[in-house]
C-alpha cells in the first residue's frame, strides 16, 4: 500500500509540474465524448460489476460503491 501512495504522490507531482497552456477556445477536441474519462456511465457500471465479481481486484478511479457479496 505504501508503494501505491508513494507512486501516486510521484505521479501527481509530475502532473502538477505544469504543461503547455491550452486556452478555453482550444479545447474542442478535449470535449469530444470519446475523450471523457467515462464516455458511457452505464457501460462502465456493467463491466466494472462483471469484472469485480470474477476477479479479486476493484477500484482505481473513484470510491467503491460497496454492497458487494462477490468477494
Amino acid at each position: 500500500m505504501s508503494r501505491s501512495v508513494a507512486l501516486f504522490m510521484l505521479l501527481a507531482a509530475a502532473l502538477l509540474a505544469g504543461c503547455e497552456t491550452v486556452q478555453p477556445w482550444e479545447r474542442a477536441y478535449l470535449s469530444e465524448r470519446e475523450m471523457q474519462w467515462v464516455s458511457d456511465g452505464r457501460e462502465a457500471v456493467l463491466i466494472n460489476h462483471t469484472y469485480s465479481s470474477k476477479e479479486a481486484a476493484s477500484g482505481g478511479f473513484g470510491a467503491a460503491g460497496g454492497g458487494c457479496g462477490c468477494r
Partner: protein
Amino acid sequence: MGRQSAAETGRGPASPTLTALSSSALLLPAYAPDAAADAPPEFTEIGIRYSNYQEDALGAESVIIGARERYDIDVTQAYVIAPVGDSWSLGLDVQHDAMSGASPWFVGLTAEGQPGVAMSGASISDNRLEVSANTRYYFDRGSLGGGVLHSREDDYDARAVNVDGAFNSEDGLRTYSASVSASNDKVFPVQGVIPVRIDEERRQSRSVYVGVSQILTQTSLVRVGLSYTLQDGYLTDPYKFFDQRPDERNEWALGLGQRLYLPDWRGTLRADYRFYSDDWGVDAHTLRLEYSQSTLWGDITPYVRYYSQRQADFFSVIADSRQEFFADDYRLSSFGAVTLGMRWEMDVRNWRVSLFGERYQSDGDLGLGGGEEAPAIVDFWRFTLGMTYRFD
C-alpha cells in the same frame, strides 16, 4: 425470501456468484468527475440497455459432481437524467438482473487424482432489482455530487451512499477530485441443496478516493487516482463449503489514464492502467486500451483488456481447512485474463444506438504471479444493445 428449501421454491440455492453479479459492487461507480464535465446536461435523456452474459460450461474432466453449465444472466438497465434549473442535474437508474445456472461448491480430487470442481447443481435462478438516484450541483470551478442506492435480491441487501466533488484550477487545465462512499449490506443465504451455516450476517465497506487530471495539450489529457477501501464484517462466502476468510480487508488501488485525440484520423486512443493491492496478499495489474474511429456509420471501437492477479495468502487449489483462514474460490487464485471487445455507436437524430460484444478468456498461464491454476476459472461472452433518446 427466508429459509424455504429449493424444493419448496422450485429453485436451487442462490449462489455466491449470483450474489456477486447481482450485488451492487461498484454500482456507485468511479464518481471522479472529469475536467470536461463542468456543466449540467442541456437536455433530458432517457435510455435503456439489454445485456446477456453467458459463461462457458466447464469441461467434463474438471467436474466431480453437479452440472457443467454455469451462469447465464440477462441484465436490463433503464435510466433518466435531467437538468434542473441552470445548475443542477437529477438522475434515476433502475437495473434488473435475471440469473440462472450453477456455481462451484468446493474443489476436490477427480478419479484421476486431478483437482476437480463440485458444482452446486443446475436450475439456480435469482432476480435482483436495484434503484439508485443521484444529483449534482455545478458551479464556476467544478461540481458536487451525491447519490443513494438500494439493491435487493433473494439473499442479499445493500444500501449505499456516496458524495464526491471536482474542483478546477483557475486556468481550467487541472481538476482535483475526491469522493467517499459507504455501504451497509446484509447477507441471508437461502438454505437449499447446498447447506449453509448462517442465517444472516452483515458486512460494511467504506471507501475514499483522491485524484487529479491534467490537460496536457489541445488533444491529450492524463489523470492519476488513488482509492482506499475498507471492508469489514462477514466476508466469507456462505455458499462455499471450504471458505473461511478474515473479517477485514484493506484494499488500495492506483489508477493511471490517458486520452489522446488524433485529428487527422478522427480517432481517439484511450489507455487506463490500475495497480491493486490488499492485505489478503492479492496484487493485481489491469491494462485497458481502446481506439475509437469515427466513420460515416458511427463510431467503431475495438478494445483489449489484460488482467493479472496474484493469489490470496490463504488460497489453495484444494482448501486446507486446518488453517485459521482458507479458501478454494478461484476468484482468489493466481490467474490472468484477456478481454477482446468491440462496440459500435451511432447517432440518428435524437437517438443513439449502441452495440457491444466482448469475450473474456482466463488462464493460469496468462498470470504474472505464478501459482497453480484453479479448475473453475471462468470464460464468458457478453453482448449489449443500448438505445438513448434526447429531448431537445
